[in-house]
């Protein structure tokens, strides 16, 4: 239970699950930061991305192609949702959230109708084969690949946010919507773009995540809970917060599942409760 190999294995499990959580939570937190919407359909986007990814990967045998297809399908769905529904309730906090709940119902149910209720996984052939071997420790390359993808995407998001014009527009939109509108930026389209990007990140997480844990009906709620806990701990709207929160929750979850499986959910909830009590804005959050 406390052997070094076991601890290292669990630590790696935690980090790789944390990486997946980061992919999932970063989209949610970005959308919230800019649009002040908690997108309750984020879990459904993850599941949709996972299903499309699995189907395309099985057909083509190519993970990259599967990822691209998933991002395209989910982004298009998100575009329709944003353009066809959310725009009509813009700025009204509660209806926005409730609308995404309705969307989540519909997407999850249609996924069940199209892809069936059986658990789906990425086919073994598209995953990176083999395992890393260091002495007695063996660890699958695929999970290390997931950590790599999360690192690359995380760094890219931070760079885009801080170094590019698009990032500047988004940051300005977070700080002062009216001012950025007055400067000639159509904030409506910035919102739409951000919602689509957030959904795309969920699709990436879904496709890659399908190689770690099965996609099946009901998973949308579970991943949504994890993502919410992560962004509550990290602070809503903060990418570094999402990174720290994901890592924390990933590690806690891995060790808790190994040591005290009966209380597995309780252990991810406890840090959230502590953060809420002592620092309600989250570790990296700003007072709204």
């Amino acid at each position, binding site marked *: 239970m406390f052997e070094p190999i076991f601890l290292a294995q669990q630590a790696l499990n935690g980090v790789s699950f944390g990486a997946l959580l980061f992919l999932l939570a970063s989209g949610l937190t970005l959308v919230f930061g800019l649009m*002040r919407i*908690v997108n309750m359909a984020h879990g459904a986007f993850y599941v949709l991305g996972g299903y499309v990814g699995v189907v395309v990967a099985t057909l083509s045998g190519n993970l990259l192609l599967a990822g691209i297809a998933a991002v395209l399908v989910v982004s298009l769905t998100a575009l329709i949702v944003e353009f066809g*529904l959310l725009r*009509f*309730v813009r700025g*009204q*906090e*509660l*209806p926005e*959230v*409730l*609308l995404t*709940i*309705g*969307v*989540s*119902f*519909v997407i*999850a*149910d*249609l996924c069940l*109708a199209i892809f069936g209720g059986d658990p789906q996984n990425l086919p073994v052939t598209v995953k990176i084969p083999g395992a890393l071997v260091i002495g007695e420790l063996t660890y699958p390359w695929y999970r290390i690949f997931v950590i790599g993808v999360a690192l690359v995407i995380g760094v890219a998001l931070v760079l885009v946010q801080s170094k590019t014009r698009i990032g500047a527009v988004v940051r300005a939109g977070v700080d002062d919507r009216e001012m950025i509108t007055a400067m000639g930026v159509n904030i409506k389209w910035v919102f739409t773009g951000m919602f689509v990007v957030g959904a795309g990140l969920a699709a990436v997480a879904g496709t890659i995540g399908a190689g770690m844990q099965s996609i099946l009906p009901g998973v949308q*709620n579970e991943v*949504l*809970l994890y993502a*919410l*806990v992560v962004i*509550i701990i990290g602070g809503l709207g903060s990418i570094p917060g999402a990174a720290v929160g994901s890592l924390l929750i990933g590690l806690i979850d891995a060790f808790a599942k190994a040591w005290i*499986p*009966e*209380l*597995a*959910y*309780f252990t991810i*909830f406890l840090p*959230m*409760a502590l953060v*809420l*009590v002592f620092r*309600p804005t989250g570790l990296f959050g700003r007072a*709204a």
Partner: protein
Amino acid sequence: MNRRRVLNLSLLGALLLVALALPYIGATSFVISLTSTILIAGILASSVNFLAGQGGMVSLGHAGIAAASAYGVGWASRQGMDTGVQVLIALGVTLVVSFIYGLLSMRTTGIYFLMVTLAVGMLVYGLAFRLSSVTNGENGISGIARPEWMGTYWTFYYVVLASFVLVTAALWVMGRSPFGASLTGLRDSESRMRSLGYSVPAYKLGAFMISGLVAGFAGLLAVWHTGFVSPSSAGVDRSTHLIVMVILGGIGTLLGPLIGASVVVLVENVLSSYVDRWPTVLGLIFIFVILFARAGIAGSVGKWIARARRRADHRPPGGRGSPVSEAVSDSNHSEEMNRKDLP
């Protein structure tokens, strides 16, 4: 105003009479049982409606409270305890769980409140799912018997009906008490109430305890109704269904929760045998209501009646404070709440 009250009261009386007569006018045991389900869901939705309509706190975790209470009964019955002890345990569990919910959510508003309650609800679900020594895991606890004197389906139906009437009346009175008025004040402006010297978290905690108590009571009735409790009864889907009921029926209205509960329960239990994709139907109804009928069914009907009467009386459209706008002010609660910006 007066005529409207008479109309409302006679409508309520007629509804109650039909409900009372139901077992005698040839309703089958299936219909009675379905009506019981609707009434229990209506009680649970009322508890959500009290928080949302009165206090502006939209909870996405109330199914967890009801389920915790149901699990209390289930666990006690598995230990072979008698009914009185079972009820006491359900009450204790409900109070503890509601207190935890309230404690964690009392400093939050709006979206944050929603997320915290959602997370706590998922925690209850997780415990129900994993803590199998107490909850029997995924299989849930079955064979929970209700007290003998309400053993037949129709005596139980009357118990549920009486419970619904009592709870609705109690929440109505509570809403019009000084405490209820303070909650409405919190909903409309927290900072104003704080500067008036009110302890905002304490009021929120109190409101949550009341609402939680009602939810726990509904959980008790539900487990007596079906004799069964499983993790899915604590799930997010159930909690979101409750929100759907409240919004669909009309947030902040007296009978909205019952109307919403009827629609959702009927879709879930009756439509589902004809249409496989009933969750899609439910989702689409929900989206439609949010986009086009924000006041819900009860609220919208109230508005139409007011508008029709206005037209019939050839009165100019009433401004703020006129009798007409006062008559529909109940149904405007949700809009007022929605207009509130983030803290």
